[in-house]
């Protein structure tokens, strides 16, 4: 299942900072952040719920809000 989030993951080093938190959740199959997009879109392929992903991002010290599928 693919989720998309609007985040404040601004730069490459911010990506580095959230990487361990997203990587260590083994049920997350794949994820990536599009920092080119003004909304800094985080895409996650996972069996976890969107709320759980938001919680993981917040744990890393960043904010994420689920985007409804277009």
């Amino acid at each position, binding site marked *: 299942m693919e989720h998309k989030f609007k985040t404040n993951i601004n*730069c490459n*080093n911010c*990506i*580095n900072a959230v990487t361990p938190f997203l990587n260590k959740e*083994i049920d997350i199959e794949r*994820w990536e*952040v599009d920092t080119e997009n003004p909304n800094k879109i985080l895409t996650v392929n996972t069996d976890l719920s969107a709320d759980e992903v938001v919680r993981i991002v917040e744990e890393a010290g960043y904010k994420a809000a689920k985007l409804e599928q277009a």
Partner: protein
Amino acid sequence: MQTGNFTVRGMTCASCAASVESMLQSAGGVADAAVNFASNSVQVKWDETTISPTDFKQILKQIGYDLDLHTDRETQAKRNEEEWIAARNRTFVAIALATPVFVLGMFFMHAGGWVHWVSMLLTAAVMAFPGRHFYTNAAKRARFGQANMDTLVALSTAIAFLYSAVNTVYPQFIQSYGIKAEVYFESAAVIIAFILLGKYFEEKAKHKSGEAIQQLMQLQPNEVTVIKNGLEERISIEDVKPFDRLLVKAGERIPVDGVVAAGSSFVDESMLSGEPVPVEKQKKSSVFAGTFNQSGLITVLAQKVGEGTVLSQIVEAVKKAQGSKAPVQKKADAIAAVFVPVVLVVAVLTFALWLLIGSLSYLPQAINSAVAVLVIACPCALGLATPTALMVGMGKAATSGILIKDATQLELAAKVNEVVFDKTGTLTLGKPQVSTQQWFAEDEPNKSVFLALEKASGHPLSLPLIEAVNAANVTLEQHQTVAGSGVWGLYGGQAFFAGKAEWIAEVAEIPKAVQEKLPLFAADETVVMFAKKNTLLAAIGLRDALKPDAKEAVAWLQNQQINCHMLSGDRPEVAQEIAKQLDIRHVKAGVLPTEKGAYLEQVKNNDKAVVAMLGDGINDAEALAKADVGVAMAQGTDIALDVAGITLMHGKLTDWVSAIKIARKTSRVINENLFWAFFYNVICIPVAAGLLYPFNGFLLSPMIAGAAMAFSSVTVVLNSLRIKSGLK
């Protein structure tokens, strides 16, 4: 509490700075952390009892930043390199200064007084600069009442120099007593140059093979593929952090300790467990750094990296074992320790006898002779005796594929009387091969189907099976692997099964008549069966076979009254079977890596035991480090190669026999060399003491000292070269 400033690397925005600050602040033991984004630095206040700057680095690396700390390993390597360069320079300077002294002393001795003055200055330079440490070392030892080679060199050269200096500055003094004012500058200068040259040879041999080991290690990849923000990226292994996700392809080593996040594969963990058959890994299976991914693409979530891995912990244990090893006393030092007091006593006796036999009027001759005894006492070939033999011995070994890293190991190998073998990969080939093959239906299509099934299975044991079965290729209509059991497929509308005996018994009916014809498999064989629905087609046994030369090597060792032992992490039945084939009585099976180290200590407990350990894996490393002589197979792991003093480049056990033979010959030549080094000088001592004086007024002259120097050096070098010949 301690406060310090560190440079942080990798911060590019204000969020980064905040992240670094909060990570450090939340670490236990850190009282305060303040980041200065402009200067890329962080000021930390911490409790040194609970946390250290290395931990800060670790914490920041987890989130992608780095802290500048200089690493210990680099400085150590740099220091070694500097020491080696210094030793080399010292030797060259000594030779450059000593050569003119030698030429002047040998060929221009009658050219006039200036010769003595020039020689004195040059010799003083040799002693004061390249040779200085002989005097400081000797002084340190003297404080504890000990003597070694340095003492002998320092004593003899210092006395030779002082005596000659007096005769140069004020020759009239000794001449007024009717004694020729001789100078021995060239002895002093050449002795120092030669002994430094010997040390240089020793270092050079060490330096060179050290490089060879490094080259071996570089064969392993040090780049890994990391998945960064959804993309693959190649990075250096040093930049991998915990929680990185790494892609490990088939044929690559797993770079970290972690769990499989995606994919599945067979992983060869033999380096850690000693077990040759690869282990199946799926999502959530643990994997370990250094193990070898054989078949599939897996994504590994890094949990422990660098120094935190099981591998590194073993390396640490190994380093500890290495560090605690007592240095071996060099033979030349042992001889010097006895020789120095003897020479001093002889010098005093000489002095006393002159006065007793002669009278007080012989006081000048008495002093002169006592000094001459001390001058001639130090053989100039002393420093060459051991290094030249070791160098030739090591060169000889290298041409046979035996790489000797540590010269003292060569000396010890000559005395080995207990040999402990690792089983897998040392005594055996380290990979299973077909050992028994019985076909109940010989016809070609059956073999072809079996081949096709094995090719489809991807099981680690399928490779040796494919190698052993010769048949034409056919295409299966359908096939499927059954995890943990085997593989089945359809061909010509019929079902064929290949796999474990238990599974075959479940899926196929095997007629009684065929069952009775089954071969008897040995305890160390793994059995694979191949069947159709209603009959057995083949039964095949695989085993990790002995190396072809294992029997010959073990028999030679036992014939030489060397006790052989075998350690194995494998099942006892398998270990016993192998031991039986080799006639090894001391066997321990099912051992863990730490138990190997313990077993070795137990063998070493006997005072007379000189123990060699032969192994190839990381699980052998601690035992290799603890052994008197550690021998690694070149096909083995880096750590085993690093720890072992001797590496067998071809992994052949008969090369170990050759190594012992070369070691014994080298050891014999060292003893002979030491004898010849001292021989010419010792026979000159009576002359120096004035034994011939009553008959023909003969006392020690620089000519005699020079001859002794030349004869002893040439004999020693020629004798060392003998190691090259006469050995197969």
